[in-house]
């Protein structure tokens, strides 16, 4: 079955490589700001740690060291971002791709909620069909046969062989 899908749908793939992300000071400074906020957040959150016995090397000591290290790291990132901004080795995101990802995340969250109420087999088939649908799959084979086979395989491996209470 899977080889059938393969032959039909994976044929010509030739596509020009999309451009890589460009270097950007704004992105680098944004990343440094997030790291700085995280470092400050850790130092502030230390107060939530309630130690049964106060001591110099208590439970707050190591997070404090790491929080300070994050702040130093943020300064280093900001300096490097201003002087030598680097570019991630990734393709740029597309609007279509972002929309697909949001739909995929929504499906997964819905699946998690439904799994509490219904049996694994009942909720997993629509999840897989939904994932294939939002990423462009169409037809009975993509939306019915493939989800049924994959769910069956999951159930055999995890439910029957590994005795996981699905």
């Amino acid at each position, binding site marked *: 079955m*899977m*080889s059938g*899908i*393969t032959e039909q749908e*994976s044929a*010509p*793939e030739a*596509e020009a490589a*999309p451009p890589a*992300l460009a270097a950007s000071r704004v*992105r680098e400074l*944004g*990343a440094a700001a997030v790291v700085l906020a995280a470092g400050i957040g850790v130092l502030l*959150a230390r107060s939530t*740690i*309630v*130690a*049964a016995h106060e001591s110099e*090397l208590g*439970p707050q*000591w*190591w*997070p404090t060291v*790491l*929080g300070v*290290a*994050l702040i130093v790291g943020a300064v280093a*990132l900001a300096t490097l971002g201003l002087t030598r901004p680097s570019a*991630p*080795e*990734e*393709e740029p*995101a*597309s609007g*279509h*791709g972002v929309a*697909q*990802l949001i739909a*995929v995340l929504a499906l*997964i969250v819905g699946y*998690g909620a439904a*799994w*509490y109420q219904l049996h694994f087999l009942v909720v*997993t088939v629509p999840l897989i069909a939904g*994932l*294939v649908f939002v*990423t*462009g*799959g169409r037809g009975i084979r*993509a939306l019915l046969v*493939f*989800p049924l086979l*994959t769910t069956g395989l*999951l159930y055999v*491996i*995890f439910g029957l062989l*590994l*005795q*996981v*209470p699905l």
Partner: protein
Amino acid sequence: MSALLDGVGALLDPTIGLCLLIGVLLGTLVGAIPGVTATMAVALAAGFTLTLEPLQGLSVLLAIYVAAQFGDRVPAILINTPGTPASIATTFDGYPLAKQGRAGVALTSSALVSAFGSVVGILILIFAAQPLAGIALQFGPAEMFALVVFGLTMMVGVSGEKVAKGLVAGVVGLLLGTVGRDPITGDQRFTLGLPELSSGIPFIAAIVGLFGIAEVFNQIVCARRGARPALITQLGSWWPSRSERRELRRPAAIGAGVGAVVGVIPAAGGDIAGVIAWDQARRASKHPEKFGKGSLEGLAAPDTASTATMGGSVTTTLALGVPGDSVMAVMLGSMIIWGLQPGPSLFVNSPDLVFSLATIMLVATAVTLGLSLLRLQGVVKLLALPQRYLWAVIITFCMVGTFAVQNNPFDVALMLVFGVLGLGMRRFGFPAGPMVLGLILGPLAESNLRRALLIDGANGILTSPIALALLALSVLAVAGPRLRAAARSRRRKTERDRDPVAG
């Protein structure tokens, strides 16, 4: 000699062969499924094997242990998702090799060096178990802390050219390692009142999210309407050429050495050994610039190291009665129930059992190697699936696999959070490797440093020869390459100044 003959002779019962085969098949399967670890499979199998004779049961459990170390490389190489934590470092070069159309050579080479590592580990078990276990006993908090510092220097290597971002990611990993109960006092830290976080961030959820799910999310977010991105549709050549086989020798030797040492240290396993070996092989390589971009050397070193730890872990377990890793902890329980008491006296009272276990592991390695080479033929079909099917399969298998670790939906939710975090890190150029390294080593670093300081102050660390040697190695590991590069550039500059025409 008679112990060797007795030990091997005890395995001639055909049911032991059958048990071994079942173990190999189960181990390969669970290794290849992201989220399902060898520990979980051994724990599940332990329930069934307790009714068997000790050697039959140990055949199943040890075969699962060995085979899972081979199976976990397949998803690491093909879909950038470690099958078990031991194959984290396999993703560094395995996946780039697959993207270059060299998945065939990567898979075959991985299987070959894994078998080599396994055999080296077993030889250590047979010939050096007692002296090595003695050295392991000298590792107190100061020595363990120094070892962990040495491990943390790998963050620089794993970061590639993004050292600052890699170090920041590493610190975030160390911070994530502080979530849960304090290792010394037991006080709650950063658990947000969630009981699920009391024992820390679930490691499997973190690595599956950061590597597998983030990779899928990144591919989805880059997808363009109507465009079909290039798939990994070819395995490329199947068997490594003579020059490629030669290329594997040095990193495999380094990996075997690292795995042998790390394996005998209690609580240090294949995941740590793999990352250390990758970095050591990069330092020793003539082409360090290729590491992380699809280097066979970068694949061979960690795969050899993580399988070589098995012999060391079994050594520690049998010689000291202390579990060498989490799988061994489960197996130790089974052995005690069977009336086998691991510890120094085992080598005196039952030397034949040591040879029996070593032989089981050797045969399991040979069978798994054969199975790995056969199984790889079928991987082509999996690779040729259109991406949307692969995405659906990876997402659902990662979700169910992560759930299966503790039967807890919280782990699945956390895996997705790490998937989104991993995606954000990739888009901003932060490598995930150092974060995972921080998460693995953070609790060990903190607990041992604090213990060492509480016991003896800084003197405890500064007066231990082992700790000092390891700390010196750590400084060399970080400063050495930079000093070498600076000296090289100064030499070039001097040569240019002396001969401006040639320059």
